[in-house]
């Protein structure tokens, strides 16, 4: 990590987005993670995505659990409220926050220890409930802060830095998210910014439970030969099924179907997702096909990345609960309290 703060000087030519914000306006505190940590690249991609999407920083709430990944919300969106909660329990806190105010964007940042081990239950149930959020796991297969133990996403047969051998089967959060109802599922690699940024942007434009698993090598404890989450290994085994591009809202939205070339999909915020298919036989709108494809490629030792699945008509938890359009935290006493009149009826019916 560095401890030298960036100067606050602003070059007059620095790009600003439609809201007049610069890239710096989306940054947070200085990262305390190790130099070269994949997580910092993900933070940068998140900052870039928010900048590109012209998101007002204060309209985002960032939530996390405990661990290296869960520290990162502090390192981005300094004008957003953040909540570094309890190990493995961010999903329930995010669920509550979302229930209280449906108007904000909820960004859940977690890791493989936080979401696949201690918090697996909360992760699954939060997705099941259809919470409208962008949920990112910064997946390095290892416990960083406690110095290098295997996590539940470590592949069977992978070796730890200290020489240990992982005999347990790995959990695949992407397949699990698909199975339990995530309506946007992607996977990426922290070393591939060109893929990450538009994928995050698409997830942020998606009004439902969006999940992205980002393989993010741990330079301190899991970047050696024999690790399947090392930079070199992931570069060699990464099979991107598509490339995305997000375009600003425009009037006419065309959707082309030409396998092997590009496809354009209207997103709910009015922008357009341009999808370049790299695997001709891959359809990200076919959930069953996606699950099969993931299994088939995993059996070949390949890591499928890109937009894995998207439901173009998602429903979220608030739709399921039929809540009012106004945020629940803004309802007044007059709207909430039935008053003495209501009690008269209650009392009368209990005699």
């Amino acid at each position, binding site marked *: 990590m560095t401890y030298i703060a960036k100067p606050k000087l602003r070059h007059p030519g620095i790009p600003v987005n439609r809201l007049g914000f610069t890239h710096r306006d989306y940054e947070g505190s200085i990262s305390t993670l190790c130099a070269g940590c994949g997580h910092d690249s993900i933070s940068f991609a998140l900052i870039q995505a928010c900048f590109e999407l012209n998101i007002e920083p204060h309209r985002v709430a960032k939530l996390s659990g405990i661990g290296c990944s869960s520290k990162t919300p502090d390192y981005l969106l300094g004008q957003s409220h953040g*909540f570094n909660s309890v190990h493995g329990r961010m999903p329930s806190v995010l669920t509550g926050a979302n*229930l209280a105010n449906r108007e904000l964007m909820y960004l859940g940042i977690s890791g493989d220890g936080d979401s696949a081990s201690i918090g697996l239950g909360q992760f699954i149930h939060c997705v099941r409930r259809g919470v409208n959020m962008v949920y990112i796991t910064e997946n390095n297969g290892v416990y960083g802060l406690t110095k290098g133990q295997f996590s539940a996403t470590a592949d069977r047969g992978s070796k730890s830095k200290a020489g240990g051998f992982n005999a347990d089967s790995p959990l695949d959060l992407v397949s699990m998210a698909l199975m339990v109802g995530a309506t946007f599922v992607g996977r990426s690699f922290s070393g591939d910014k060109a893929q990450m940024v538009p994928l995050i942007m698409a997830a942020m434009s998606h009004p439902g439970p969006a999940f992205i698993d980002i393989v993010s090598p741990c330079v301190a404890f899991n970047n050696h030969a024999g690790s399947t989450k090392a930079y070199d290994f992931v570069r060699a085994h990464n099979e991107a099924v598509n490339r995305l591009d997000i375009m600003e809202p425009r009037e006419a939205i065309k959707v082309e179907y030409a396998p092997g070339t590009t496809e354009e999909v209207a997103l709910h915020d009015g922008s357009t997702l341009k999808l370049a298919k790299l695997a001709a036989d891959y359809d990200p709108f076919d959930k069953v096909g996606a699950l099969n494809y993931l299994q088939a490629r995993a059996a070949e030792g390949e890591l499928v990345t890109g937009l894995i699945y998207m439901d173009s008509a998602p429903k979220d938890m608030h739709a399921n609960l039929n809540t009012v359009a106004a945020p629940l935290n803004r309802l007044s006493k007059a709207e909430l309290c039935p008053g003495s009149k209501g009690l008269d009826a209650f009392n009368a019916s209990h005699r």
Partner: protein
Amino acid sequence: MPQVKSVNDFVVKFANVNGSGSASANEMFARSILRMGVPVTSRNIFPSNIQGLPTWYEVRVSGHGWLGRRGGVDLMVAMNPQTWDKDVASIDAGGYLFYDSSRPVPPSKFRDDINIVRMPLTEICNARYSDPRQRQLFKNIIYIGALAQLLGIELGVLEKLIGEQYKGKDALIAPNHQALHMGHGYAHDNLSNLCGLRIERANEVGTRIFVSGNDAAGLGCVYGGATVAAWYPITPSTSVAEAFGKHCRKYRVDADTAKNKFAIVQSEDEISAIGTVIGACWNGARAFTATSGPGISLMQEFLGLAYFAEIPAVIIDVQRGGPSTGMPTRTQQADLLICAYASHGDTKHVLLLPEDPRELFEFCAQSFDLAERLQTPVFVLEDLDIGMNDWLCEPFQWDDSRTYDRGKVMTAEELEAGKTFGRYLDVDGDAIPYRTLPGTHPTKGAYFTRGSSRDRFAKYSEEGPVYQDNMQRLLRKFDTARSLVPAPVITHARADGKTRHAAIYFGSTAPAMREALAALKADGVELDTMRLRAFPFPESVTDFINAYDQIFLVEQNRDAQMRSLLVNECGIDPARFVSVLHFDGTPITARFIIAAIAERLSLSSQEAAE
């Protein structure tokens, strides 16, 4: 044969088989007495089971208005062969045993000091009904009809209750009326003058209502402005969440859009439930969870976070018998310590201790004001006795001029005007800082909430003095809470000066305690009393205790947990307390309290004589 003779003052106990449909018939029985203007209180003693295990329903009839359990049984309605011996043994001498005499019972199974009332219920049912389900359900109504005749309950009152119960399912009314009359007719022809217990019309109920605590708690949360509830099913708290849902569907659905002004999440476990409550409260909604002891155990880590990060939360704990699974369908007051000091590290939490459904309604509504004012978890500690039984209590009241205290939330306007925002800064001297809600202002007031140590401006810090500064402020904040929570209720037995001994009690012990105090007074034992209503203890609690040499402390747990709390927090010599502890899982009775206090007093007077 001696006969217990009593008008409007006796105990009827029904011994039934769980799942036989007896509960609603028995409740109708209790309600019919109320409708005749005679106070009753009822207690369901039920197993952790859906069908087959024994269940009891105890009705205390008290023209004097004593609403606790008295102890003992005057009339046993023995409908369960499984528990026959125990049920027969529990009847007071001279009392009555009413049973189904369709099958012969050997003479050795009776007692010669009780009165036997035989009715061939199964025979009557089988002769009249062919459908097995009808035989079962109408049997309950038939015995209610017979009891009405035996005790002098007006048939018209029961008919009206049946009409109310089956409103909208009118086809069921006439057959139920017929069954009622069948039982009444049989008793009239065959059982007249067998029973010395009578109900006589009175005017002692007034405007009081008959309501369960969990129903009241759910309603209190609606009135308190809760919009988010997250919960996991657990006896005996499940009906709190269900009642909240019921009342919300009645009062909280927008008339124009048919959309809900509430959200209820059935969580995957109690950890998730409290996490969701904390997330919602952090984001400015009023949220609560309802649980019982095992749930409180699971929530510990999150409760520490809410304490340390200063996030409001309301937890309704319907206490049951612990530890572990313990006695899930029995009552206790055994979660005091785990709630008061929930989570690792140095913590202290606010507890509210309601005495009955009315106060529970009030405390639930008030708990949200306290939680937001103090920015900390608030526990409403009720128990199975209050929660799952119908209690006769004063009608609920609401002052329409009352406003919600949303606590110190800094607004966008205040931030814009340049007001200094430090999330953990004590600006007002009451140790309560200001908070901002997510999404308030584009460039001001954002902060990072964390369970790790931080400075007054919410910046991460592991500096010893910074950590201590914060922990000391949290302690001062708890001092502020002392003046905000409900004060104890203190009563003096004499107009002139104090008594020699005093008694302290709290929660569901209240009605049995009142009856015990009156009985002790009749025997010449006068006690000043203090009913605790909250933790932290207001100053008046210590003052009261210091005024007496010896104080009876009545609790429904084994370890005298309230005593620990008082000793620890008020610095009182433990020898000053004489514990009266009832923890067999049944609600404490007046007789138990009277016996314990009388015995102790006679012991101490003997000691004094020696």
